[in-house]
């Protein structure tokens, strides 16, 4: 019995698992927007973190950053 009979189907099966994962990603809409993600990676996450910190810092002091409108 040659190893081919096991290896080949196994290889194709592994590939098919990848294909299924891809199918799932497409179905759940991860490929719907191809524009924003490509530019989003250029933006540092740091800003987000700082904002969160700002918010925490400003909240106890009566949320001075909130505009009073």
């Amino acid at each position, binding site marked *: 019995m040659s190893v*081919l009979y096991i290896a*080949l189907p196994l290889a194709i099966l592994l590939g098919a698992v990848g294909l299924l994962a891809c199918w799932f990603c*497409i179905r759940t809409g991860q490929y719907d927007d191809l524009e924003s993600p490509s*530019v989003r990676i250029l*933006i540092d996450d740091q800003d987000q973190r700082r904002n969160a910190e700002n918010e925490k810092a400003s909240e106890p002091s009566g949320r001075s*950053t909130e505009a*009073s409108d």
Partner: protein
Amino acid sequence: MGMVVRESHRPVVDRSPTAVRLDQVCAHCGLGITSATEGSWLGTRSTANNEGMESDLVFCCRGCAGAYALIHELGLDTFYSLRDQNASEVSPVRQRRRSQMLADLEGSGVPVEHFSDGTCRIRLAVDGLHCAACSWLIESVQPSVRGWKSGRVRMSDATLELIYDPDVVSPVEIADRIARLGYGLSPVDLEHEGAQGDREIQRGHWIGLASAAFLAANSMWIAISLYAGEASGMDPSHAIFLRWCGALLGLLSAIFPGRIFFRSAWESLRAGVPHVDVPVALGLAVGTVGSLVGAALGHGNVYFDSLASLVFLLRVGRYIQFRAQYRTGMSLAKLLRMNDSAAVRIREDGTRQAVPANRLRSNDVIEVLPCQVLPADGVVIEGTSVLQTALITGESRPVQAVVGTQVVGGTANMQSPLIVRVTAAGENSRVGKLQEMVRQATAQRTPLVQLADRIGGVFVMVVLGLACGTFLVWCALAGYVAATERTVALLTIACPCALALAAPLVITVALGRAAKEQIWIRDGGALERLAKPGVIWFDKTGTLTYGELQVIQWRGELELLSRVAALESHSEHPVGLAIIAHMQSVDPAWNANLHRVHDVEQRYGHGITGSVDGQRISIGSMQAKEERLPVDDTSHSLASQTISIQVEGKFCGALVLHDRQRPEAIGCLKDLRDRGWQIGLISGDSAELVDAMGATLREAGVPLVACLSQQSPEDKIKTVVDSKPTYGTTVMVGDGINDAAALAAADVGIAIRGGGEICLRDAPIYIPSHQLHSIVRLIDASRQTVRGIYRCFAVSLTYNAITLSLAMAGWIHPLVAALFMPLSGISVLAMALLAKTFPPQGNPGPPPRNPGPPQRKTG
């Protein structure tokens, strides 16, 4: 305060009414300056002065002053003018209406998804979205709003997905926060836009591509090992196993990603219209069955790898074509969304509530403010005003509306608020019925067979015939095995993929170039159809003319005109708007505050009277028996409106107003005629106006095949359809809702930007700039495109003729054939990309941004 620079780089200032001094605006961020901030940053102003900036600049904070100084230092001051130009400051009225709609999500028809932890998910439209920085700005606000869990902007359709906790924060609060950045959030009906359907199709394409690529790649390496095994002497049982594996993959490829070809082939067979997919499907079927037989018999080669890669290549072509059309459709959908479709409903208790126009019902009472478009049909129950009906009827003169007048949705209220009882909304309204008509016209349009499909069909029939012949002949001469081998070689090398790819590629390239020239083409087939001259029907109002009244003559003193304009600034009548626009063009520095105006009195139908700088001025239509006019009204007597000005009861001046013809119209029509097109005029306007226009055109040397007036939308469809057999290709160019059905019924409908966005949905070509010359460019490009397609076909057919005869003679081994196959594909690809569409010569540079009169303000 005021010092805190948020993520937006805009200072958050106290905007309570008492603290804001409106005359002080920060030079960088444009926000009002509070007394508090002013006090602390007066020093900033003087520093700024020292750096050589203009002296009257004030800044709200050091951050802004620094940013300004930097921008100024780098010589990037254009930034400010560009910013102001693009700044879509969300108007307070609009924002309030939107807030009301957001407050009642159910009523506005926004689907809300509830999660188990009490949060909700909704998707809203964002306007003013331009680039990645915009989406970053919006998303960065999220952490600073309590209860707003997540916000993701999707650039492709300009929407924002919100997850929020309804107990802590409402969408209205989030929208208010984002509005302060200059972006408006509004409910959106994605289902209705067709975006959802398109997205499903796009997903289908992705999945098809992925699986086709997977199957093609795998069957290819199995094929390689088979060939290699043949050379090195593989164990026969292994060869059989590999063959079966390849066969399985190829079969899957034909069944899953390849099934779209079988389906469309089946549909085209049922409809009796030949389509390129018929031969493609036949080729696939024959190849698959043949290879299965080969695998089962255990001799002869199997060509599943070729089949799988053929399926993959074809799907790539399909995807490219779909993508181009999807993008155009998307930009259109976004544009249509801008057209605020909110209506103000008055409840029984007298409170007003904003609702999306498509949720109005009969017997609702609505308020229509000046400059708004009526959202539904109805009867006026309160108020008097003037309506601009040009979009619905094509009539260029405004119409009076008083209590009891039947009004039609889609007309614009020009003057004063109206309270209207809705009699028909949605599908039952006039606009709804027109849309239904458009749908019918689209469905009834005989589909023109695309060039590629015609040639492709013939090609594959020929190839199949040759394949059968080859098989039979070689069967008789050399037996079954050799016959199969040669037939497969022939089928492989003659793969129609070059043909199937050429046309979509050339058209896609052309679509992309057209979009750069501000011509949006949604249906690639339209480009092909424009290559053969036929007849072009032009709508008059708004297409060949500006669609708005303009002052073409003024007799009197300039000083008087200035006073007249000041008086007219109290009116929203189209005549008044035209006079003000004229005054502003004469003297750009003019403004209405130069004169003291009081006691303004408007009598509907009788003009406007008021006291300007102490003198009583009345403006009204010229009475027939009035004093002799000091205007030469010979040339425009029919199509124009004359207004007389009286000061203290004495006749002092006169104005002639006219819906002016676009200056480029005659040149454009002549160019079209030179290219062999017949030209016709088709309008809903009154006979005298249309005939006057026709006469002007004929005088200028543009022969018209017809000059039709008072055409209802039904008449327009009939005219357009009837002219098809006589003239061949029928093109309709129009801008209004009344043209929409005719645009859909014509072979090619070209919509020019007007206010009637409904017609844009159904016209395959849309020209958002008002450039009539784009039509000429389009027709030239269409010829070039078709020529490019023919060239690709010629190369690919020559190549095929040579290789086919070699294969039939048995000189090409199937393996060599498979190696040759991509050659024709690559050559076609190169030619398609190099094809000249929209040649640069004759391009008059970027068109002026706003060639027409000020755009009509709607909404």
